[in-house]
Structures are given as structure tokens and as C-alpha cells.
């Protein structure tokens, strides 16, 4: 991770587990729970040291805020984050379809 330099949070850039914890404010236990529940996936689950796409930082930060602000347990956090991710994917698909529509829909 480069410090002091602007960083696009895209999936090609990788963050180590510890970096993801530090930047998201989640503990390692909480992060591992999100992985167990299938909300976050490391680049290579079999690797000794997990790394994550930097775009996952957005999801992890959102998980931390939701847990804190709604007082959610880990299961509920996983459920909300999974639904938000689905919503985001659908919005992206909608944006793509609109862009392809002559006249822009």
C-alpha cells in the first residue's frame, strides 16, 4: 500500500488483511466473520496471508458503520451488506443498460 498517494479503490489493487482492518476500523475477528459469511472474499482463500481487492474496503467500511450505527450483530451485518452489494450490482447493470440504450433511456 502506498501512503501519501491518491489511491483508486479498484479490484486490481490489493490490500493485506491487516491494512483492510486498519483502514476499515473492523477487528480481524469481525473481518474473518464477514469472510465466513461470504460477504468478503480474499483474492486467494488458500493463501497464508490473505489479501483483498481494494474495492472491498468500501464494503468493509460500510459494514463497520452499519454495525456501529444500527447496533447489528455479525449475521445482520452480513445480511445487510450482502443486500447492499446486490443493490450496487443492479445499479451498475442499470447504468450499463442505460448507456447502451440509444438516446440514453
Amino acid at each position, binding site marked *: 500500500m502506498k501512503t*501519501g498517494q491518491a489511491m*483508486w*479503490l479498484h479490484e486490481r489493487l490489493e490490500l493485506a488483511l491487516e491494512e483492510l482492518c486498519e*483502514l476499515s476500523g473492523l477487528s480481524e475477528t469481525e473481518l474473518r466473520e464477514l469472510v465466513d459469511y461470504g460477504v468478503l472474499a480474499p483474492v486467494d482463500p488458500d493463501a497464508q496471508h490473505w489479501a483483498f481487492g481494494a474495492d472491498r*474496503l468500501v464494503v468493509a467500511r460500510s459494514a463497520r458503520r*452499519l454495525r456501529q450505527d444500527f447496533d447489528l450483530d455479525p449475521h445482520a451485518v452480513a445480511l445487510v451488506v450482502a443486500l447492499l452489494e446486490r443493490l450496487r450490482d443492479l445499479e451498475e447493470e442499470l447504468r450499463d443498460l442505460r448507456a447502451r440504450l*440509444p438516446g440514453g433511456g
Partner: protein
Amino acid sequence: MKYKDYYAVMGVDRKASAEEIKNAYRKLARKYHPDVSKEKDAEEKFKELGEAYETLRDPEKRAAYDQLGSHRPGQEFKPPPGWEQQFGGGSFSFEDIDLGDLFAGMMGGTHRAGRRGGKVPIPGEDYEVTAHITLEEAYRGTEVNLELTVPEYDASGFAHRVRRAFKARIPKGATDGQRLRLPGKGGKGSNGGRDGDLYLNIALHPHRLFRASGHDLFLDLPLAPWEAVLGASVQVPTLGGPVQLKVPPGTSAGRQLRIAGRGLPKPQGGEGDLFAIVQIAVPTAAGERERALFKELAQASSFNPRGHFAEEAAK
């Protein structure tokens, strides 16, 4: 100090029970939480709500707040005697202090005055803000001016909310909804804690010609009927300047002609593509000679664009 009406913010009566306050918080949090809300100003509203709830949920803080009496929101008022003692022996003034930060710090001894005096490193706050930029700015990279209300701490450790202007450089490679992290551009850390980060959420303004999907761009390309039939070389605008595009003969409406590498630049290198979507445009008022030629074409041509309708009906 300026008064804030926490009961009004939460939409509850001054006599509301703890349960009613909790329910009101949950309801409004679902509406305004920045992670789930589509409301305008959700971020600001959620901050107000969080501040009100933090004070009203705690019986001691609520009792202290109730002592202030009821004022108009924004009205200047003086805290009751005895408050100064609780907060620092009367050695500082309450003027300009944010009511929310005062309550956030009271009772538990967790305000930054207490923590700042200690040796525990406190990381600076992360800021998150949406930056609206044009497609041209995303293409070239740009610098944006942002305004944020952020807490700044005085010598006693009390927060004062101040409006601060930020300049942030957005390197090329932005797409709609993309996030940019600017390390160390958030709030200052104290006692050796690291400075917070600034997170920018990029939102692209709609463009007159181009529509973006990820790093690809889409453009409507109107063609005259004869250009579509005979093929043509047409000039097409791109963000990097106009290019010549070869339209192959027999191009139908809806076809996407790809112009490689003329989309938005990608942060990891390379570029998206530009897709020109063919539309067949016709003159709204054709001249006499044009009409005659089209009539002649209609008689001479055996082309039936709806042949498959008949096939379907025959099944």
C-alpha cells in the same frame, strides 16, 4: 453556545420514553444512514440524528440537556451555572463550542480534553464526501474544491465545528461511483495517532453526447439512410478529439461500432472503448427531388425489413 432541539430532530415529545426514543432513532436511521439512504443531505441529517440520539439515549446526558430548558434552534444561550466547573473549572468559555461535542464528551470523561492529555494515540477522523465532476475532468484528471463541516479541537480538547475548504487532486481513471482514497487528508491524529483519510465518492455529471458505463463510453451515431446502406467514413467526436470512423456498408440501426481505446483511461493502465450506436436518421421534410428518388428506390427494391413477421405468422 447555540441551542439545538434534539427532541425536534428525533421527532419525539420531550416526555418520550427511552423506548420511544430508540424506536425513533431506528426509524430515522434507516431513512438517513449514508450507506442505505438515497435522500439528499443524508450524511448531514444522519450526523444530526446521531448527535441527538447519543445525548437523549443516556439518562444522565438527557437530564443535563433538559436542564438547559427549551430554546429556539440556533438561539444563543448560556449554560446553567455549575457547568463550567464540570467542564474545566471555569477557565474557558462555552462560546462557539458545539453542543453535540460537549454532550459527547460529558459524563463518561471520554471527551478529547481527557484523552488528549493522556498518552493514548488517537487516529484522526476519516472524511467522506461526494465529488461531482464532468466526463472531461474524469478523462484528464482534475483538481476539485470541496467544502466540509469538520470538528477541530481547541487547547482544552473541545470540538468546534468549522467549515473547511479542501483541494483534492483526482487523477485520471475515474468512473461513476468509483472511490478514491487520499491518505492523510482527513482529520489530524493526536498523541502520535495517524491522520485520517479523505474518501471521495466520484459522481459524473451527465454529458451531452457520451454515456459512461465503467470505463466504456457510448455515443449515438445518427446516419443518413444512404450512409447506412452504402457505408461511409464519418467524423466522430471523442474526449481526446475527433476521429474518422468507417461505417461498413449495410449497417442497421442499433449496431454498436467499437472505437478501441477511446473510452476513459483506467487507473491500472489502458483505456476503455467508445461504442458508437447507429441510428438511422431521416430528413423530417424531404424535398421534391428526394421524395422522387426514394419513390424510385421503393419500386426498385425487393427488400422487406419485416419478412420474419410473415414467417412467424405462417408457423
